[in-house]
């Protein structure tokens, strides 16, 4: 008979609970797993440079806070922060900024939205850490594999490490319908090119796709799926290719929703890195809607 399996995380939780002597109260004092310690483990595991001027690092809250749980997301929106607080996961790992821009708080110190968001974080004892460059640089490239997994396409990858997948034959329209369903999209998806195109080879490119990538790789596949592009660059290019008679398409699903699945993989990774606390994925979701 198989021995009852107690995962490392469960064991650690049990041990933690016993040591703390009460239900869900986190460890206090020297043994507590702080946000700083989680950051240290991430930095050690991922390696590379973590320049203070780069995007990665603490954005809000006290790094010395004992961690009750970790939430990962593509973007720490108010919606995500509310869910994190409700779930008792007080360390939020976000791929995109928290305060409306690369600079975090781009000159909005007395802005009511900024103030209310910051107060919410403080009142609920949340800590927000941005993990972008070093997560993206990780050799596993889980931003891409995460998106593939969410779409149910993991097994169709053509070459390990690459972003091209050969999926069962479909049309661009049907592929878009599937993407919409699998990613729970609302109004953010926009497609360009041949909606009737026969689709086998797809490229997954979460986040932003530059024109250099577009020019180099667009004609390798039937359908390119990315987060966002500049419209006067790649949208224009995809439309022109269609006019030129090539039956392929470009699907932009939204930058943030394209990055959400990769952060689900990040939560899985954190379970091994910080087994003392639960880690869960809280997707930011599709923030757009369409007029009726």
């Amino acid at each position: 008979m198989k021995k009852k399996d107690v995962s490392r995380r469960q064991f650690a939780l049990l041990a933690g609970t016993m040591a703390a002597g009460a239900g869900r109260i986190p460890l206090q004092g020297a043994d507590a797993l702080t946000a700083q310690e989680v950051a240290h483990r991430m930095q050690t595991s991922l390696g590379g440079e973590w320049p203070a001027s780069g995007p990665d690092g603490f954005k809000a809250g006290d790094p010395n806070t004992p961690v009750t749980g970790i939430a990962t997301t593509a973007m720490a929106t108010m919606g995500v922060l509310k869910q994190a607080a409700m779930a008792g996961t007080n360390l939020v790992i976000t791929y995109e900024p928290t305060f409306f821009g690369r600079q975090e708080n781009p000159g909005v110190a007395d802005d009511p939205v900024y103030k209310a968001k910051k107060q919410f974080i403080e009142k609920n004892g949340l800590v927000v850490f941005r993990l972008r460059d070093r997560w993206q640089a990780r050799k596993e490239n889980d931003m891409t594999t995460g998106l593939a997994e969410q779409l149910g396409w993991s097994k169709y990858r053509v070459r390990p490490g690459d972003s091209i997948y050969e999926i069962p034959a479909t049309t661009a329209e049907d592929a878009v319908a599937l993407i919409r369903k699998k990613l729970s999209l609302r109004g953010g998806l926009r497609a360009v090119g041949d909606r009737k195109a026969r689709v086998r080879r797809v490229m997954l490119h979460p986040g932003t796709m530059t024109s250099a990538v577009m020019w180099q790789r667009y004609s390798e596949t039937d359908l390119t799926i990315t987060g966002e592009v500049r419209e006067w660059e790649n949208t224009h290019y995809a439309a022109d290719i269609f006019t030129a008679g090539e039956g392929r398409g470009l699907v932009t699903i939204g930058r943030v929703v394209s990055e959400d699945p990769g952060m689900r993989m990040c939560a899985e990774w954190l379970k091994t890195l910080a087994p003392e606390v639960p880690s869960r994925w809280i997707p930011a979701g599709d923030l757009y809607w369409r007029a009726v």
Partner: protein
Amino acid sequence: MTGREVVELIRKNVGVPWNEQSYRDTFKLGNPDSTVRGIATTVMVTFDMLKRAHQAGLNMIVSHEDTFWNDRDETKDLTSNPLYKMKTDYVLKNDMIIWRIHDHMHAMRPDFTVVGSLRSVGVKGGEDAVMRARVYTIPETTLGEFASQVKRLTGSRAFRCVGDPRAKVSRILLGPGYATPRMTAEADVVIGGEQQEADGAFDDVEYVADAASLGMAKGLIMLGHVVSEQPGMEDLAKWMRTFIREVPIQFVPAEEPFWT
């Protein structure tokens, strides 16, 4: 009349100092000294609009945006690209001339791109609008109703909205193209063309989504680049007709490229 002469007339009539340093407002393709048989104004030199312009007998394109899928119309990485070759061949074979008017349009008073964009979404009073965005007040409505009006008036299939559709709004701040303004305390709705969704100078999408989560009445309408700057190119055609009468001048719209 040559392409060069057309540009010279625009220069004389533009009403602002000519910017010789602009890398945007230059000839992009074709022979500037070719004879112009007709002029097409458009927001974007798509291959599709080039074909329609040619069929209409218009061989000079005056476009607000780029031809070769990048702002500088840099072509050094495209010389062996089949699409680049096809598009270039089409233009040269048909003796077409492409000239871009971007920077000068945004310097002009009024800026036709803003005037046209405001008119296209049903906001009144923007006939003298310039690039620097200001707030326009409309009769109070909900964000959802206003978005429905935008859809009806523009005919756009693919524009995107953020915020609570039930939010009461009346103060509109619009910047077309890539000049989507940042939300301010004085505005309820920001209308833009496009903007990087996150990690930019100011991320309106996250800001407006958060404001909505906090119960504040804020909305964002992203029209798309073509939809937002296209209407002004019709105004440009009208303006050009006031000082160029030798050849026909037509507005030849670029299609909204998206399906959803």
